[in-house]
């Protein structure tokens, strides 16, 4: 009996076998070119980029939205251990100034996907820390925002201090000032009970020649001297000549005097030369270094001086004015 299949059956059989071989070859080929990105759900770059859990009750920033805007992304919260995941090398500025946490989130204008803002709320622990990071980044030639003494805006952003918070609201384009200001004002209103810390050092700078918007607070490593921290620095223009003054309030008069002496030794160690002067300021020290003059003295709990002025007479003039102001305030 002949049970061989028909020619059609044979052809169909070979076609099926051929198809199976092709499938096997395909599987083999693809296996050798496995793309983990297609088949694996993973965190990018081996990092959990954002905290696994947003703290319960965390401010999601949504309540500061003006009409016509809606959330564009989820709330992100960063702490001291991962702040650099958000702002990279600038994290050091915040970390050295008492940074506690950052809440940030993007919001978009309804019907205009290219018009979005990102709000950054930095909790700096204390008002003076918030002022420190605010002042360190303050842009020149900006417009006051009308939200208190430490607030300004640029063509695409709003920056301000409120209580222990430093806040940035940055837009993706120009022309969104109304939205930025509305968000800022809502934030201030919501945090109403919290006031900006009174920074008494600001009153210690003599007003004549002072560039009012130039005062900054450096938290650490001031002028490269690792013992000098919490120092206010102000720019002056005296007869068209730029001069820099500084003030640092210490815990005691003894510490202020000891720090002034240590700062002088630091300058001498790096090639400075002591300069004799005749200013009527007790314990005043002047050092010439790299063709500039630095003056330092103490007055009560305050260590103060003039830093790297190209002109000796201007350095002495401002030092004397600074001492006079400290005398006046202390009376």
């Amino acid at each position, binding site marked *: *009996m002949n*049970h061989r*299949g*028909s020619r*059609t*059956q044979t052809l169909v059989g070979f076609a099926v076998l051929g198809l*199976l071989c092709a499938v*096997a070859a395909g*599987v*083999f080929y693809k*296996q050798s070119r*496995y793309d*983990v*990105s297609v088949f*694996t759900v*993973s*965190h*990018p*770059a*081996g*990092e959990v*980029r*954002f905290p696994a859990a947003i703290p319960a009750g965390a401010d999601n920033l949504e309540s500061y939205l003006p009409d016509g805007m809606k959330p564009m*992304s989820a709330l992100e919260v960063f702490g001291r251990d991962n702040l*650099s*995941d*958000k*702002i*990279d*090398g*600038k*994290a*050091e*500025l915040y970390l050295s100034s008492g940074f506690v946490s950052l809440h940030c989130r*993007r919001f978009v204008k309804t019907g205009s996907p290219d018009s*979005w803002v*990102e709000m950054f709320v930095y909790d700096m622990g204390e008002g003076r820390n918030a002022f420190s990071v605010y002042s360190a*980044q303050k*842009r*020149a*030639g*900006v417009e006051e925002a009308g939200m208190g003494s430490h607030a300004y805006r*640029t*063509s*695409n*952003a709003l*920056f301000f201090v409120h209580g222990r918070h430093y806040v*940035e609201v*940055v837009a*993706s*384009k*120009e022309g969104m000032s109304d939205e930025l200001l509305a968000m800022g004002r809502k934030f201030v209103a919501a945090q109403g009970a919290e006031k900006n810390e009174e920074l008494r050092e600001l009153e210690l700078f003599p007003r004549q020649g002072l560039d009012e918007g130039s005062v900054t607070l450096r938290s650490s490593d001031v002028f490269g001297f690792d013992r000098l921290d919490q120092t206010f620095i102000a720019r002056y223009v005296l007869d068209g000549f730029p001069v820099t003054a500084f003030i640092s309030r210490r815990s005691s008069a003894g510490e202020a005097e000891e720090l002034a002496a240590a700062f002088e030794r630091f300058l001498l160690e790096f090639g400075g030369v002591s300069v004799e002067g005749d200013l009527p300021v007790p314990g005043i020290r002047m050092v010439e270094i790299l063709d500039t003059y630095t003056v330092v003295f103490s007055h009560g709990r305050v260590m103060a001086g003039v830093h790297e002025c190209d002109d000796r007479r201007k350095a002495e003039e401002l030092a004397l004015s600074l001492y006079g102001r400290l005398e006046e305030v202390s009376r």
Partner: protein
Amino acid sequence: MTGISSENERGLNRREFILRTCKAGIAAAAAGSLGYLLHDGLGPGPPSEAGDAQVSLPDFSIPGFEGKLSIVNGMDRVKSVHLALKSLGGIEAFVKKGDRVLIKVNAAFATPPILSATSNPELLGEVVRLCLAAGAASVVVTDNPINDPGSCFALTGIGDAARSAGAQLVFPRDGFFRATTVAGGTLIRDWPLLYTPFENVNKVIGMAPVKDHHRSGASMIMKNWYGLLGGRRNIFHQNIHDVIMELAVMVKPTLVILDGVTTMMTNGPTGGSLSDLKQTGTLIVSTDQVAADAFGASLLGRSIRDLPFILKAESMGLGTSDFESLHPIRTSVG
């Protein structure tokens, strides 16, 4: 009546049944054996940040093309990059038919392009098109942003620019990192490197904007390689100049494009305000990444002594800080 039906009607004898059963068994066993042979028992493994074996990047520079530098003044990035490349012999001098090109951009932050904190999308798109027009078989665009990569590539405009120009956008993923150690390095040792995108690539272009940087003083071409590292790379910020030097040892690119058309003068590397920016109108294309950064320093108003990583890289023989010694070709666009 069909053939199959008629055969079924005839039935099978015992001999034929056994024969067919054996054939089917052999076929099943053969298929199973083949499957067993082809099966990768280990599979791709769990996502691993650094992998097991150490890798290092090959030298992507072109012999004989060392020390080329072109500086173009103008605000039009597209015209500037055309002119710069033309002055160096055209893109064809660097990208040949069939080349597989990787462009390392700066996509570090999920910020809008107007802030100039990231590579300019228009410039990127044009460079991708130039590479493909020169015959490149593929162009890969990648970076390992510190922010969420999806947001970074989308909001900076880099993702759209790369894709629309014909490049493949590669996001960093766990399995893409392999351990690397920089020869003679003290910092980058057994450290995860974004390696997979470099496999099968034979040309590398570094593309970065000129920016102020709070820690290093400047972020330009050499600092931009930082984005190839994985892990808790922020620990290197304590030795920022040394790690930038090691990064320059790690990557020897074919070409670098430093975008100084708009420079972030202050508050880098994130910026945030348009008032941080200055229109410096300069595009630098070079085969010497040290020279490119040295020139970039001048756009920031800094000397190379303000940026120790430049001199450190020079001391390693990676290029020259004396960019004038390369006799740069200076041109301008209208």
